[in-house]
């Protein structure tokens, strides 16, 4: 069984924030050069014309911009997307123990092995119905397919609902087909036995939602909410598949699968394009080609995929294991709020967890403790660590601070402790004499104490980014709860340096790509070119007069004096302009002429003139 979540990046956000359902959501990916492209968009955004793969400029030019449309735009977060899918996969283990993620760096679906499991739910259809109902209640809009092989299920989950939708449109000549289905395909499908359609149809509200969900381009003028559409659109009367949104291929049946486009074989896009140029659009057409010529022209992959889909070639996949052994829980027979009762329980759970961690030679980086209240909602504590730790005392120390500060509104009936992120413990050789490693524990303690009280988003490390726009020239990242913290790696490097372990030092440097002191020397020519303090929002300057006589022609608009904090400041000398013109691909055009100015009081500021408005702003202070 395969479950596909169309536009997973958008779905993840909408489920977390249900208010986004009524907004057009667009997720952009920004590459290293800062070029933005649409990765995913919500059904509503699709309705407004947004398409995947658009650049930012295309989005600006083609997407409607008005005061009534409130676009919700977010940056693509593949790691967070994957983590959310892993959480969902873990929860799906309620239906079957073998659940896996799709292949690839950015999976959008799950694989479930339901052989021998479906009978417990009353059959495959009932299992699919219950699974889909459960997912829909949680706010997801998935598509599923059940087939003999993984290849067939994958193709059917992704392409069968679209195919079904095509069959509902009669006659094809009066319709404008969706962009991702060709006309021949639709014509073939329209004659299939499952279609029972009427020449006129009425979309009710639920159908509207379904059409939006599946990005169906409606024909004619629709009146949203009224349930009326123009003539010429037909809707299938059999809606059972539509409600379930699940396609089940009976054992040995492959007719429907053969009608799918070649893309359903999980082939690379370049190969699919080549097939399309050759007129091979469907899997059935591909099957008719001689196998030898296919191998000679396209390699082993098409045949391999076909054999995998037919079950002639075994396909293995690795089930997702969400660290099942790093989770402990305990229920309380009598609900309690006393610290004297709760603390020993927590101690026992942490002791058990650290024993398991030590066996795996791993340490915890992110720990979650869930307290189940009798009448109140569950209380979740998320605790992040700077270095991977499997020390019971260390973990309990962090938890003790939280426990002492908590006021229980309802008696606790159960406790769960789960390791959400772990990492291998750093190898440390035992020393006969003190090598100064006590600093590491002190440093870890400081970071964890600060993060525990202020929150992980307020204890940060800095990474420079090659971006000319000053406010985008660095990135601040949390120090705790990350495997790739540069501060942690630098600390390990220091220990290696101090203890003289050349091999360890080299290993740490190579692994982390850490270039110590690189930032200190690489930009030495830029000393005093950038201010020490940069305002989050440039402050508008009140210009007192314009220095027209003394300055050169191109700098004539530099103010001779401006009012700052109520005091008139006069410019003594200046350096500039330094033009920064960037960010056109991000949307708002940045075009600024920066000046470093020294006032008559000796103070130095960084001011700029906005290219678009011509106004002056104070952006930084030296």
């Amino acid at each position: 069984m395969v479950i596909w979540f169309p536009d997973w990046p958008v779905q993840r956000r909408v489920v977390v924030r249900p208010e986004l359902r009524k907004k057009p959501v667009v997720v952009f990916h920004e590459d290293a050069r800062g070029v933005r492209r649409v990765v995913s968009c919500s059904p509503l955004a699709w309705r407004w014309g947004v398409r995947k793969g658009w650049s930012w400029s295309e989005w600006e030019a083609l997407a409607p911009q008005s005061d009534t449309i409130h676009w919700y735009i977010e940056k693509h977060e593949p790691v967070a997307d994957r983590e959310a899918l892993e959480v969902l996969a873990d929860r799906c283990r309620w239906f079957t123990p073998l659940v896996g993620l799709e292949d690839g760096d950015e999976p959008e679906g799950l694989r479930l092995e339901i052989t021998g499991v479906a009978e417990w739910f009353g059959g495959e259809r009932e299992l699919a119905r219950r699974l889909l109902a459960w997912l829909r209640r949680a706010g997801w809009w998935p598509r599923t397919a059940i087939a003999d092989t993984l290849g067939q299920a994958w193709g059917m989950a992704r392409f069968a609902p679209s195919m079904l939708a095509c069959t509902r449109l009669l006659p094809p000549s009066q319709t404008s087909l969706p962009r991702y289905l060709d006309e021949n395909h639709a014509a073939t499908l329209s004659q299939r036995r499952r279609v029972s359609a009427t020449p006129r149809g009425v979309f009710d509200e639920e159908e509207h939602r379904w059409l939006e969900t599946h990005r169906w381009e409606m024909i004619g003028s629709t009146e949203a909410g009224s349930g009326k559409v123009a003539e010429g659109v037909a809707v299938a009367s059999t809606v059972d598949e539509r409600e379930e949104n699940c396609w089940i291929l009976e054992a040995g049946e492959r007719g429907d699968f053969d009608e799918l486009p070649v893309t359903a074989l999980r082939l690379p896009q370049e190969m699919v394009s080549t097939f399309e140029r050759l007129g091979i659009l469907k899997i059935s057409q591909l099957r008719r080609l001689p196998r030898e010529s296919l191998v000679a022209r396209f390699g082993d992959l098409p045949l391999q995929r076909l054999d995998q889909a037919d079950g002639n070639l075994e396909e293995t996949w690795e089930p997702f294991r969400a660290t099942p052994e790093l989770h402990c829980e305990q229920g309380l027979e009598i609900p309690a709020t006393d610290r004297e009762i709760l603390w020993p329980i927590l101690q026992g759970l942490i002791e058990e967890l650290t024993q398991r961690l030590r066996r795996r030679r791993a340490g915890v980086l992110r720990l979650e403790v869930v307290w189940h209240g009798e009448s109140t909602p569950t209380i979740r504590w998320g605790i992040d660590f700077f270095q991977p730790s499997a020390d019971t005392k260390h973990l309990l120390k962090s938890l003790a601070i939280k426990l002492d500060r908590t006021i229980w509104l309802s008696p606790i009936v159960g406790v769960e402790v789960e390791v959400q992120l772990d990492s291998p413990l750093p190898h440390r050789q035992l020393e006969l004499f003190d090598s100064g490693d006590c600093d590491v524990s002190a440093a870890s303690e400081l970071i964890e104490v600060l993060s525990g009280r202020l929150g992980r988003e307020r204890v940060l490390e800095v990474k420079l980014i090659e971006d000319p726009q000053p406010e985008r020239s660095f990135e601040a990242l949390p120090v705790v709860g990350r495997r790739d913290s540069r501060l942690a790696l630098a600390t390990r490097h220091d220990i290696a340096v101090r203890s003289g372990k050349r091999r360890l030092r080299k290993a740490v440097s190579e692994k982390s790509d850490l270039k110590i002191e690189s930032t200190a020397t690489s930009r030495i020519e830029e000393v005093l070119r950038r201010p020490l303090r940069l305002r989050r929002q440039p402050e508008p300057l009140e210009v007192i007069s314009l220095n027209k006589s003394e300055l050169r022609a191109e700098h004539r608009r530099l103010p001779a004096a401006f009012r700052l904090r109520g005091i008139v400041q006069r410019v003594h000398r200046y350096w500039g302009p330094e033009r920064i013109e960037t960010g056109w691909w991000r949307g708002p055009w940045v075009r600024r002429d920066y000046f470093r100015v020294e006032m008559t009081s000796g103070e130095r500021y960084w001011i700029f003139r906005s290219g678009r408005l011509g106004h002056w702003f104070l952006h930084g202070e030296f």
Partner: protein
Amino acid sequence: MVTEGKRPDEETQRRNGQASARRLQGLRELIQRFETGGSVTREPYSSGLPALDAALPGGGVSPGSIVEWLSSGPGSGAGLWGAAVIREACRRRPGWIVLVDRDGVWHPPALASLGLSLDRLLWVRPRDEAEERWVIDQSLRCPAVVAVWTAMERLEARWARRFRAAAEQANTLGIFERPLAAACSPSWADLQLFIRPLTSEGRWRFEIEVVRGRGRVRGMRFEAEIDEFDGAIRECLHVGERNEPSRRLRYWLQTSRGVFDEAPSHGDLVSRLAGAAPRRRSARA
């Protein structure tokens, strides 16, 4: 005979000279102990100003001390001088720099250009004043931290005492940027410097005055400049040593007296009794 007779004299003189040097060294150490309040002598960091280093007990800014840079406000370049001391401290001792920044206004690329390694910079952004005080205290107490750098408007005496004790305990350097008005309130800093940018036609020039400090540094004034290309500090003029504040500082003290002559709190009273009393001392002078 003559040469034989001279030899014991020269030897005696040499021995006497060595004994005198040792005695002098011992006396210097004793004086230094008095000056530093009996704390353990540590290898000091250079402040960037050779004349100031020579006058400071120990020959520079001591690790485990608090240094306050007073300025009239942002844009006066006080941060550059703080960065210079921190850069020197990081060069001498591996560890972290904790930058406590409540407003989130520090610009990391500029810090990198000043020679501070961002791989060792911990940027903490507390929400309010209470959190800010707590973060500074915790960071100063951590032996893995070389320096704590922050800018703060006001500092209560009880927190100042805590910071001082924490810095001494963990051997951590505290660099605080404060407004000029802080000169009117009691301070527990080991060294308090007033920095004033000057207009010039060449490099960026500053006038630095020691407001408070142990030893014989109080009242010393310097003029120095920062090279815009390599960030090097050049001391260009040692203006002199005076026991009274400069005219500009005195003007500030007089104009802000009304604001700072409020009834002191219990903590302030204790600190004034135990610590320095700048106005009274300046009146004496």
